C-alpha cells in the first residue's frame, strides 16, 4: 500500500499528463485512435493489488489488478457472487478478460462512434469549455448504441450535450450487488459506493466518474453475499457473443416462496452509468413474482426514457428485458 501512496503523491505525473496503465485493453486502443494522448504512461502492474480475499463483514475484496477472468472463475466469486461471475463472462472475449483488470474495467470509456472519431464533434473528447464549441455527433447522427436515460441535451450552446453510454458489463452487476470502490489518493484513502462512482454527463460529459486527480482505485469490496439463488444477467446484443450490450439487465432477488422479499435491478447499455432506481425496486417488495407485478417495475425504471431515432427501440427492448430478467431470476422461465 505504501507503494500506491507514493505513486499517487508523485507530483511530476500530473504535469506530464500521465495515465496509469494496467490491462491496457481500452487505453492502448484509444491511443491508437489519438483519442487518448497521455504524456506518460505509468505501468502499475507490479503494485501489490492482486488478490481476492474475504473481509470482516462477510464480504469479499477484489483487488484492482486481478484480471476479469481470474475474478469470474475464482471459486469464492462463483459460489457467493454467481451474478458477478455470469456478468463478467458475458463481456468481451477470453483474451480481453485475461488482460483486463477489475480496476481498469471501471475506467472503460464509452464506445460512442463519435467519441472515437476525432474528425467529429464530441463534448466528451473535447469539452466545449476548453476549446470553444464542440458538440455531439450522436444527437442527430447514427445513435443506435446510445443512451435513453439520464442524457443531457444540454445548454443552448450545445457544449454539454452527451448521449454516450458507459459500456461495462461488470459494473452493472456491481451496481446490483451494491459494491463499494476503494480509492487511494493524495488525500488518503476513501470509499465510494458504486452508484456514486460513475456519473451522468450533466454539464461535464468529459468526466466519466467522481475520482479526484491523482486518485487510484485499489479494490472493489462486495458486501456479504446476496441473491445466490435468484439472479440473472440478461445481455441483449447484435451477436451471440463478444459484443457490447444494446440493453442489459442485472437482477438479484431475495425470495420467500413466491414472494419477493427484496430486489435489486441495474440496467446497462442505456445510460452514462449503470442505471438503478430504488423506488422502482420498492414496487416489487412484498409482491408475488409474476409478470403482471414486474410490469410496473419496468414502467418505473424507464420513466423519462428518451429515444434519439436509431436507439428508440431500446425503450421497448429494455422494458421487455427487465420483465424477462426478473422472470428468469425468479425461475419462472428458462435462462437460455
Amino acid at each position: 500500500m505504501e507503494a500506491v501512496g507514493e505513486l499517487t503523491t508523485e507530483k511530476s505525473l500530473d504535469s506530464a499528463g500521465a495515465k496509469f496503465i494496467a490491462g491496457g485493453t481500452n487505453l492502448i486502443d484509444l491511443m491508437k485512435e489519438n483519442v487518448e494522448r497521455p504524456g506518460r504512461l505509468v505501468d502499475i502492474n507490479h503494485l501489490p493489488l492482486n488478490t481476492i480475499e474475504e473481509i470482516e463483514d462477510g464480504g469479499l475484496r477484489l483487488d484492482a489488478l486481478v484480471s476479469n477472468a481470474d475474478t469470474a472463475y475464482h471459486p469464492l466469486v462463483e459460489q457467493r457472487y454467481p451474478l458477478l461471475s455470469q456478468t463478467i463472462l458475458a463481456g468481451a472475449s477470453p483474451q480481453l478478460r485475461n488482460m483486463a483488470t477489475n480496476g481498469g474495467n471501471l475506467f472503460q470509456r464509452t464506445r460512442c462512434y463519435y467519441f472515437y472519431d476525432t474528425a467529429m464533434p464530441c463534448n466528451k473528447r473535447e469539452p466545449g469549455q476548453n476549446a470553444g464549441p464542440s458538440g455531439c455527433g450522436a444527437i442527430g447522427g447514427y445513435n443506435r448504441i446510445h443512451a435513453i436515460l439520464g442524457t443531457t441535451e444540454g445548454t443552448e450552446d450545445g457544449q454539454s450535450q452527451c448521449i454516450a453510454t458507459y459500456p461495462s458489463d461488470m459494473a452493472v452487476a456491481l451496481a446490483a450487488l451494491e459494491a463499494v470502490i476503494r480509492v487511494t489518493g493524495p488525500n488518503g484513502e476513501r470509499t465510494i459506493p458504486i452508484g456514486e462512482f460513475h456519473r451522468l454527463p450533466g454539464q461535464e460529459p468529459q468526466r466519466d466518474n467522481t475520482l479526484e486527480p491523482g486518485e487510484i482505485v485499489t479494490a472493489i469490496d462486495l458486501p456479504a453475499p446476496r441473491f445466490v439463488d435468484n439472479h440473472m444477467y440478461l445481455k441483449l446484443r447484435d451477436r451471440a457473443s463478444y459484443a457490447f450490450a444494446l440493453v442489459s439487465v442485472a437482477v438479484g432477488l431475495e425470495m420467500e416462496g413466491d414472494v419477493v422479499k427484496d430486489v435489486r435491478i441495474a440496467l446497462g447499455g442505456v445510460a452514462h452509468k449503470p442505471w438503478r432506481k430504488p423506488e422502482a425496486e420498492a414496487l416489487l417488495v412484498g409482491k408475488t413474482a409474476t409478470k403482471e407485478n414486474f410490469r410496473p417495475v419496468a414502467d418505473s425504471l424507464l420513466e423519462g426514457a428518451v429515444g434519439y431515432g436509431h436507439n428508440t427501440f431500446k425503450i421497448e427492448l429494455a422494458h421487455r428485458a427487465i420483465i424477462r430478467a426478473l422472470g428468469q431470476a425468479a425461475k419462472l422461465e428458462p435462462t437460455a
Partner: protein
Amino acid sequence: MIWTRLLLDYMITQLEPKSAAKPVASLPETRPVTLMINGAEQSLTLAPWTTLLDALREYCDLTGTKKGCDHGQCGACTVLVDGKRINACLTLAVMQEGRSITTIEGLAGNDPSAPGQLHPVQQAFIDHDAFQCGYCTPGQICSTVGLINEGKVRTTADIKELMSGNICRCGAYTHIVDAIEDVLQLRTNQPA
C-alpha cells in the same frame, strides 16, 4: 523535378511564421527491452509505445503472429503470456518484460522425444481442414491452446462461446470447432 522542389520549399516558407524558429519534433528515446519469447531471451531496443505485436513481427522476425484489426477485435494476434491467451496488439512490449511469451512459432517441437513434431492443436487443425486462407489460424491455434489451459470447456457450445474472440473471415468455424472437439476428446470425431 528541381522546380517542383523549389516551389514546394517556397510554399512551405510562406506557411511558416517568419519570426518563430521551426519547432523540432523530438521522439522519446528508445530503451532496451528483454523479452522471453518461445523459451529464448531476446534483447531489443524499442520505443516505449511499441506493442507486443509489433515487437514480435517487426523486431523479432516472428511474423507468424498476425495483425488483423490491431484493435483487439479479431484475435489474429493472439499469443500466450505465462500460458494465458491475450491480444498482442493491446499490450506494450515493455509491459511484458519478465514474462514467458509463446507464439505460434513456439508450439511445435516442445516434446524432446519427438523433435519437430507439431503441437496436437496444430495437427488437429490440419486433420480437420480447419482453415481456408490461414490468416486467422495462428491466432485460432494459440487461442485454442489457451482455452485448453483454462480447462472450462464441457460442451460444444462452450467451445463456440470461449473461442468468440477469434474471427475467421473465411467462415471455417465448423471445422475449427471440430478440431478443438477432437483435441479435447469431447467426442469420437475421426476426420474423414
